[in-house]
């Protein structure tokens, strides 16, 4: 049990020996960690399908069937899936064997850790206050089990409010944000993902920006790769017209769909509120599975497939990250 918690903390990764060295030389391996897959299931009309059980899913990695270790729906408590397919409540390691140290508590696996990344650069100057209102609304409406962090960025990232379940703290941090300067969206998104990756349990990153980036050293697809590998869905709410900046629009589409998230274009305040509502709905209706990868010689990109066994007619649509790369480690 303890292993599960620790592995969930590590996020995704699996694999084999990369290059064995001799004697005292360090050995590079890919980490054999638990993989977290967060996804939604929708019907042919785009409505979320809820109430599915672990037994309803078949999980594949590079075509190899995987055994589901834990299962959760929305903000409901995580259950452990046993060998025979039955489930039992997930018991946290600290409850099972209390020990000092940074082991995650069972609470860590309930609800979603939501990281909001708010663009406060010069590009957002005009819509800054409305965006702030929309984000505040979203934070208020999150499920009680969810935790939320509010980060802002211009040329640098600012951790306006650390991850908390106290909504007032998050909104307080948000309302103290300062507007101005260049925009380094992808640098800041990367740092947000790095923070999110350290947190146990399910997490998502929601970017609120109108797209332009004039200061990043990192390309969007390098950031997307990190999100994919860490199993963190990205949601983007753009305050721009979809057609006004087609390059940013294409990037937003790609980085969200490849991580199991979604992009929204919401120029008006009302649309922004609706977009947030949609994100909230997606979070509430998402499923989270974890698994230990079966032996797999692939050291590169490993494809993840989630199938709904009961959906014989294949009318349901599963939106999940397409895969991940196992992490090398020393």
């Amino acid at each position, binding site marked *: 049990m303890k292993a599960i918690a620790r592995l969930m903390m590590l996020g995704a990764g699996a694999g084999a020996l990369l*290059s064995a060295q001799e004697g005292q*030389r*360090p050995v*590079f391996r890919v980490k054999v960690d638990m993989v977290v897959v967060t996804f939604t299931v929708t019907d042919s009309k785009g409505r979320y399908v809820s109430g599915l059980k672990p037994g309803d899913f078949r999980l594949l990695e590079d075509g190899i069937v995987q055994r589901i270790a834990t299962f959760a729906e929305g903000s409901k408590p995580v259950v452990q899936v046993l060998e025979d397919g039955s489930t039992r409540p997930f018991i946290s390691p600290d409850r099972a064997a209390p020990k000092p140290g940074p082991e995650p508590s069972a609470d860590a696996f309930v609800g979603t850790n939501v990281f909001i990344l708010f663009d406060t650069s010069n590009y957002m100057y*005009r819509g*800054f*206050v*409305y965006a*702030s*209102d929309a984000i*505040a*609304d979203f934070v*208020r409406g999150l499920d009680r089990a969810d935790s939320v962090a509010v980060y*802002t960025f*211009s*040329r*640098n*990232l*600012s*951790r*306006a409010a650390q991850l908390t379940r106290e909504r*007032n703290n998050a*909104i*307080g941090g*948000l*309302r*103290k*944000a*300062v*507007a101005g*300067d260049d925009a*380094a*969206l*992808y*640098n800041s998104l*990367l*740092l947000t993902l*790095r923070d999110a990756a350290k947190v146990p349990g399910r997490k998502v990153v929601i970017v609120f920006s109108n797209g332009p*980036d*004039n*200061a*990043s*050293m*990192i*390309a*969007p*697809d*390098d*950031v997307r790769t*990190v999100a994919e590998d860490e199993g963190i869905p990205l949601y983007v709410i753009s305050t721009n017209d979809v057609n006004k900046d*087609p*390059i*940013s629009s*294409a*990037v937003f589409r*790609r980085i969200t769909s490849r991580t199991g998230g979604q992009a929204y274009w919401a120029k008006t305040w009302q649309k922004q509120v609706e977009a947030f509502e949609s994100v909230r709905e997606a979070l509430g209706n998402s499923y989270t599975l974890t698994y230990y990868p079966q032996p797999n010689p692939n*050291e*590169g990109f490993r494809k993840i497939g989630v199938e709904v066994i009961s959906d014989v007619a294949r009318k349901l649509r599963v939106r999940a990250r397409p895969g991940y790369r196992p992490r*090398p480690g*020393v």
Partner: protein
Amino acid sequence: MRAFGIIALAAVAAAYTLFGQDLAERARQRERSGDVQDARQILQRAARGAAHDAAALAAYAEFLDRYRDPGTRGAYERLLAALGPSEREQRVRVARRLLELDLLVGDRAAARKHLEAHRAAGGQLAVSPLPFERDQPATAGPSYIEIPGPLSSFERMAAVSQDVGPEDLLPALARNVVTNGYQASTSSEALEPTEYMKLIQRYLSQARELEKLAGAEKVIRIDACESTKTGELLRVLGYRIRGACGSELVLDTVNATRAFLTLDAGFPLAELEQALRTNRPFEHDFKPTRVAVLYGPDYWITSKEKQAAAFIDVFLSDPSLCRLYLGFSKLDRATADALRETAGMARLKPFGHVLDFFGGMFEIRGGKAEVPGGARCGPMWAEMVGVSPDQGAAFFERLLTRDDGWMASFFDALARINGPAKEYLTQPERMKRFYMAVRGRVTSPGPARPVFRSNTDMLLLTTRVWLEADGRPHVPGNLEVWKNLFIKHPHGKYDGRLTRAASGWKEADDLVEALFGLCRKAVENEPLKIYMALSDLNRRRPKPLEPATVDRLAREYRAFGAQYTIFSEAALADATVLQFLDTTQSISRIGDQLLRANVAGMMQAQVGLWQIFCRQGSIPPAEADQALAGLLTGIAKVRNSRELFDSGRAGVKLLLAATRSSERASPQDRLLELLAGVSQPGDREAQNQVTQEMMRLFEAQRLVRLDTLFELADHLEALSRGEKLNTALVNRLAARIGEIQLPRASLTSLEKNALAYGYWTERHIESQRKVNLRSASERAAKDPEEMRDIRGQLAPFLRDTLVGLNYLHYAPPGGQILQTNPVFVRSHDFLGVQGSQQTWRHTEVFGTGWPSSAGGRLEGSLSGLPYALAEAEQNFMVPAREQALIWGDLVPQLILSAKIPRWWNVTPAQMHWVGLHLRYGESLLAEAALDPRRREQLQETLERQAAPGRTHLVLQLLAESEVRAALDQVTPAELFLLAAAALAREKEAGGPLAGEIRRLERESPDRINYAAISRAFGTPKPTLTTSYQPELLHLRTFPTLMGFSSRIMAESWESNTLYWAALADEVHLPPAQLNLLIPEWTQKTVEKIFATHLEDWPAVLRSMRLVGEDVRAKMREQTAGEQRASE
């Protein structure tokens, strides 16, 4: 103090029967071996075990004192209590030390107590009563105005650091108004306010409305949600209520302009909303802020203006007024007073820009102006300015108003320097001659007109001119070289007049005059740069460069000048310097662009490694020249990829041999080990951590190990002899190649079109991705020579691995780019955009922002790699406070200073010696508060580093017993110098701290001296000294300069490493840990900096000290935990 040392030692000696000589010696031995914690415990146990043993208590207290331990005062207290009435003199000394320590921490109550103890024991102070004994402050306070609302809100809106207090607000605001407040109007000649200024003005208007709501009590109070006041408050704030009062209530924007001000000013909107939701009272203190105004508002604005608007509004609306205010705020009070009395505000206002940039060094003492060169130059200054320096303020007034600032800038440049260069430059006739050269015939526009000082070059020249033993300036090569350069310059004339004059030059002064003449040009001043670079090289050489070498280096500076830092790494023969230039030229002639990029990359990577190994002492100095010559010989012959690979491999072998590496060692592991740094056996753990971090980044960059490449090359050779293909080996490379991806497969056409990924970069990466050794070897199976050629395909991989090793060595803390962009090293563009010829230029960051690039990359040579990497990484640092941003231009240099030097060979005694200097420097400040004679001595040293304004502030604070506040104004580098000056002045005295410093010097004279400490704890200054060799130059902190922004200022900042060394000593860390901790502490310092403007180095100082406090607190917590555990 001298007596104290003798008495304390006598006391210890007399009591050895109790304390035990062996115990003291044991503690000393532990300390000497670096086990300070153990030494401390020995002394602590001895002190605890004998509460009345003065010797044991003294030994323990002095030990704690040397390490700046927080328990020092307690230990001295116990010693004082243990001393009997007969030990009067000792009691006097201990009480005085306690008094000094109390003043250093600002504990006035304790200071009073220990002052009494001091007096009771018969002690006498030079000043009595001390100022803190008086109830009222001795000096009159400044005048104040009120601005509406809290200080923090105003500072947020005005982009002023939250660390700035109301006393210092106006100078900071004035600077921001001058630099950001106004812009040229498109419709008229007048200036128009920027968005920044409009926001401040709107904020003030909103704040006044809120002030009215706050009523007489100046508190915005909402008792209940339904209160009538709620609506009014929300209207002013630009919000409205959505939903009914209660838990459903939400505040929404209704007026975006007002709401923006509300948020930007940091109004507690979330708290207000929460109060309304819970129907609880809301209170927000909205008292106006009292802000100090120099000379009061009446001096600055007319009565008419006063009637029309508040002072703050007039101030904001007048950038000229702000400029003058800023200039005045830099002067020491006495000088400012004199200037104010002599020249009215209206008279000085048009020259505010000159006062701001060049008035900082003005000083009037006893009614006379202090001038560079002192009394011997008085008549010449009188002649040049037109008023005698004896007339103090009138002299400065005339200086300000002459020639649009040229003479003031000349005065400033000379006033900033000390030593022989100042003596030379201020010889009266010479001084006038140089002034005339820099002034020129047309004086407008003057050097204070642009946003930055445009006399950058003059400041650099006066700082760096290097004099020979005979007092004449050094001329690299000889005068003929320089005459030729000016007359027959290959890239055209520098200056027609100087070209004509050059043929008549007879002495070094003629050249220096010409260099001053070029300083007035705002454009690139190449001859000065050449002169400074070559002087720098000669300064470090045992024998100056030959005239022929200087001539060539001067002529080829434009093309290869960025590479000249290489020549300062070791004492190179002239032939090797010329061989370097030959090699670069031959590489530049290679027609095949991809091959040229690879050869240039391979050469620069190998030379880069050679530089690192020379700097770290891995290549013995005597062999450095030969090693570089060997590398160059190999690479110069390369004509194809196969030769390139062979040359690269031979270069690695040569580097390994030069570093005395075992032939059996794995090249990859050995190079990583060497790059991490040579360490002592006890430091292996720290070294392993450095190596592991490099390996992590090596993997993230998907680089190919040298072992693999060399094994493959050997295998191809074996195949050419008919051996069988080793599939596993070939697959290892194939697997790595498979990981090299350009993120383009999924890009849209629009994205691809918008990208400026870099043509040659892309081709370099694509060429690697196409390598298929198996198929190539199958095709070449029948031709052994063709089979051997295949190893040429490995050359780009070898280049990248060697370039990558350079990158890893300099990787800034965090290393987010290297960790995330797997082709960052491979993307290094050695050619640059078509036609730009970047190959031998400084490294530059290119392609930030999406979609202009697929991730930024570096281009140019590797000569500026440490700075460029830090520059690229700086925006990944996360400021600790909202609104603060990472300080571009300064931060890369701070990071560079933390990454280039390594401290593996530093001894605990060296570190302690630095710590003792800083501690002694602090003590000197405390002594100066008690003794005016000490203050005079302190002034003598401090004024060589600090501007008169700061020097006088420190002296004033000390005179008022405000030692802690004075300490805040003095940098660690200055404390170091104060101690050094006191030690030099008083050969024997100085008390236990000075005694300990001298004892350490005696014990290891070869390692503990100022030159060795300069090498160990200095900082690299590539721009200022054309070298990456760390050193302490003890320069004044530079201002921002045109063309360099804060970079030169950062290079002149030497406090960090000294402070970190003292901190590590204080918390008893081994020196090897500095290799891990200095980068980490530097990153934390950078993240905590909250600066207002580009010259705000006090913000760096504050931040550094905050990090120091955090480290101390954590270490104390850890020590306490360990003690609890052991008990």
